[in-house]
């Protein structure tokens, strides 16, 4: 693993871990919510 090498500050952690996690969380929320009932 290369975590120790590449992460050198809080913003790095935010970008390198947080960005993919945020994308995942957003898509999980979108894919799990129920659509509008069809008329």
């Amino acid at each position, binding site marked *: 693993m*290369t975590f120790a090498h590449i992460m050198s500050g809080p913003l790095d952690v935010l970008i*390198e871990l947080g960005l993919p996690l945020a*994308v995942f969380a957003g898509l999980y929320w979108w894919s799990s919510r129920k659509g509008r009932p069809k008329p």
Partner: protein
Amino acid sequence: MVEQEGQAEAVILPMTRDSAVQIALLLLAGALVFAGLSFFRWYRRRSWRRSALSAGLMGALSAVAFVLAFTVAVNVPTYPVPFTARFATNPTPNTLETVAAGKAVYERLCLVCHGARGAGDGPAAFTMNPRPLDLRIHVPLHAEGEHFHWISEGIPGTAMPGWRSTLSDTERWQLVRYIQSLAATP
């Protein structure tokens, strides 16, 4: 760097290849989770289309991150630089006067190790382990903010000292202009 007419500067993503690959792998892991989830929902006869779309989207983003990692990301593992520092831009004008000012500082403080042409062959270089790298090869591979950070703070584990207390911000940015011009001069 003093640009010649018609000569474009190389595009460099101010991020190491390791960083971009790290992001790509995490996105790929997310895509696989969504793929499993959509299969599970399809098997249970639940709504699975959005999960499958999410898997595709994360897969596509992962592919983009991989492409960036192996095209425009910095591909040399180096002493880490804070993310904000990597994006710092040079406030000094890109002129011959700036380069000349940077050269004067370079010849006073840097030449003894880095050599007159930046080849890492200064008189003191031969006593060092690790030896100074060839700036003409390595400077174009990094964002200017990285050079400024290394000049300011030094590089732990090497003989490179930090010059923050000796040189002003302007002088250090002028140095960056000069070493970029060294790399650009054949």
